[in-house]
C-alpha cells in the first residue's frame, strides 16, 4: 500500500533532475549522428547530408590523428603513474610525523592547489617559467642558459605532468590517509618487538596495509587513459608545442568549434567516448572483482 502512494511522489522528485539530464546529457548522445553527416548547423540534424563513414576515413588519413592520440595517451599515462605514486609516498611520510598540529597544517596547505582553477594556475606557471621569471633567474645564477620553457616541445609534456602532480598530490593523499587509519596499530608493535626498525615497519606493515587502496586507485584510473586534462593543456599550450602537447580534446575544440569541421570533430570525439567507455567498464569490472568496489 505504502509503495503505490509513495511512488508517485518519488517520480515528482526525480522529474527536475531527469529533465536536466535529458536536455544536457542524453540529447547530445543522439547528436553523435553528426559524425556520419556533412553537418550544416543551418540545416540541423535531420536535413544535413549523410556521408556514411567518410568522416572516419578522413580522420584516419589525417597526419594529426596519430599524433594527438599518442600525445593524449602519453601525457595521461604519465599523469596516472605520478598521481598514484607521489601521493602514496607523501601519505606514508606524513603518517610517520608525530607532531599532530604540524601534520594538520601541512595537510591543509597541500590540498589548496586542487581547488584553484587551471586558468589561475596557468597564469602563475606562465609567469614563473617565463624568460625573465624566477626559474630562469635561478638557472642563470648557477651558470645555465635561460630556457624559454613553454616554447620547447620536448619539455612540454613533462611540465604538464609535473604541474598536474603538483596540483593534485595533496588531494589524492586523502584517500591514502583514510586507508592508513584503518591499519591495526598492534601490527606496528608486533613488528617492533620482532626488531623491525622504522623503515622496515613502513615497508612491511604500512605498504601492505595500503595494497588494496593502491590497486583500486590504479584500476579506476584506467578510464582516464584518453583524458590528458583539457583545461590544463588548453591554458598552457601554444602552436610551438603542438607536436607534443596537442591532445584529442584540444584538437576537437579547434577543428570543431574554431574551424567548423563539425562532422570530423564529432567523429574524433565519438571515437574517444567509445574507447573511454570500454575502458571504464573494464576498470569497474576489475575493481569490483579485486577490491569489491561498487559505485552505488
Amino acid at each position: 500500500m505504502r509503495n503505490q502512494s509513495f511512488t508517485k511522489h518519488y517520480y515528482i522528485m526525480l522529474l527536475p533532475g531527469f529533465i536536466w539530464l535529458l536536455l544536457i546529457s542524453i540529447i547530445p548522445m543522439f547528436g553523435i549522428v553528426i559524425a556520419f553527416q556533412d553537418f550544416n548547423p543551418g540545416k540541423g540534424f535531420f536535413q544535413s547530408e549523410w556521408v556514411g563513414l567518410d568522416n572516419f576515413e578522413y580522420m584516419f588519413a589525417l597526419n594529426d590523428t596519430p599524433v594527438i592520440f599518442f600525445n593524449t595517451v602519453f601525457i595521461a599515462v604519465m599523469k596516472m603513474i605520478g598521481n598514484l605514486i607521489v601521493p602514496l609516498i607523501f601519505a606514508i611520510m606524513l603518517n610517520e610525523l608525530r607532531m599532530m598540529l604540524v601534520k594538520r597544517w601541512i595537510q591543509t596547505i597541500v590540498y589548496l592547489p586542487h581547488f584553484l582553477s587551471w586558468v589561475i594556475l596557468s597564469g602563475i606557471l606562465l609567469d614563473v617559467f617565463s624568460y625573465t621569471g624566477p626559474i630562469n633567474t635561478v638557472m642563470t645564477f648557477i651558470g645555465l642558459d635561460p630556457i624559454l620553457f613553454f616554447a620547447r616541445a620536448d619539455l612540454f609534456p613533462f611540465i604538464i605532468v609535473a604541474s598536474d602532480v603538483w596540483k593534485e598530490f595533496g588531494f589524492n593523499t586523502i584517500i591514502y590517509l583514510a586507508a592508513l587509519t584503518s591499519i591495526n596499530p598492534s601490527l606496528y608493535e608486533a613488528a617492533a618487538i620482532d626488531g623491525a626498525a622504522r623503515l622496515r615497519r613502513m615497508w612491511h606493515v604500512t605498504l601492505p596495509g595500503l595494497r588494496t587502496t593502491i590497486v583500486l586507485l590504479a584500476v579506476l584510473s584506467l578510464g582516464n587513459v584518453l583524458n590528458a586534462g583539457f583545461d590544463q593543456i588548453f591554458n598552457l599550450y601554444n602552436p610551438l608545442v603542438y607536436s607534443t602537447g596537442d591532445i584529442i580534446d584540444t584538437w576537437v575544440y579547434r577543428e570543431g568549434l574554431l574551424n567548423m569541421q563539425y562532422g570530423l570533430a564529432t567523429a574524433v570525439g565519438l571515437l574517444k567516448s567509445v574507447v573511454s567507455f570500454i575502458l571504464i567498464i573494464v576498470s569497474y569490472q576489475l575493481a569490483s572483482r579485486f577490491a569489491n568496489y561498487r559505485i552505488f
Partner: protein
Amino acid sequence: MLRENTWRAKLFDLTLLIVLLLIAFLCLLPLWYTLAVSLSEKSAAAAGRVWLWPVGFNFNSYKQIMGDGSFFNSFWISIQRVVLGASVTFFITTLMAYPLSRSTKEFRMRNVFMWILVFTLLFNGGLIPWYMTIKELGLYDTIWGLVLGGGVPVFNVILIVNFFRNLPKELDEAALVDGAGPWRMLLTLYIPLAVPVLATVTLFTIVYHWNEFFHGLVLTSGQENYPLQTLIQQFVVVINTANMTEDQYKRMSELSNQTLNAAKIFIAMVPVLIIYPFLQRFFIHGITLGSVKE
C-alpha cells in the same frame, strides 16, 4: 605509538619534518609569488627582480583594476553564476537523491534510474553535439547556459544517495509510524541529518562554478558575457594561436603587463581562499562518509 629516543630516531624525525615542510612550502610558493608580483613595481617585475617580497611596494595594479568596468562586469557574472548554480544544484540533486536512495522494494524503478544516471557518467556525446544542443535550447549567451551547461553533477548525486542509504533504517520506520510522507521525511529527517555531505557537495559546486572557464568561452558571444575566469583566460593566459616563431613568442610574453595580470589572478583566487577553511573542514569528512557502503 612506539617511541624511540635514540639520536638516529631523532634525526629521522627531523629530516622528515624538514622535507614535509619544504613540500608544503612548495605548494604555497607560487601563490605567494603572485601576490608579491602584483604589489611590485612594473619594471622590477619585468626585470625578474621580484622574489618573495614586493619590490617597490604599491597598489597601482589594484587601483587600475578598480577602474576596469569589464573586470567588474565579469566578476558580477561569476557571482550570479555561483549563487544560481549552487542553489539549483542543491535543490535538484537533493530531491533526486532521496528516491534513488530507496530500496528496490520501496521504489521498483530505482535501479533503472540509477543506471541511466551512471550511464551519463560513463558515456557522453562529445563537445560538438553538446554545443549544438545548448544552442538549440536557446541557452547560448544566457546565464542559464553557464548554470545548467555542465549537466547534472552525477557524482554529487551518488555521494548523497550513498549517505542517505547509510542512515539507520529505524529512523525511517519511526517516521513512517508517525505518518510522515516522502516530502516530510526528506525535509525534516534526511536533509538535517545529511548536512555534512550536503555542505561538502555544495562547496564543491561553488568552487566548480567559480573556476569553470570553458563554458564561459564557448557558450557566450563575447567579453560582456564572460565570467571572470574566462575573462582572465582570454586576456591574461591565452597566447594567440596564429603561427609564430620562438622569438615572437618571447616578445609576446615580455609585452604582457605582469603586475596587473598577477593582481587579476590574485583577485580571482580570493573567493576560493575565503571558503577554503570551510571546505577543508567538511570535505574529508563528507567524502569518506559518502564512500563507505554497506
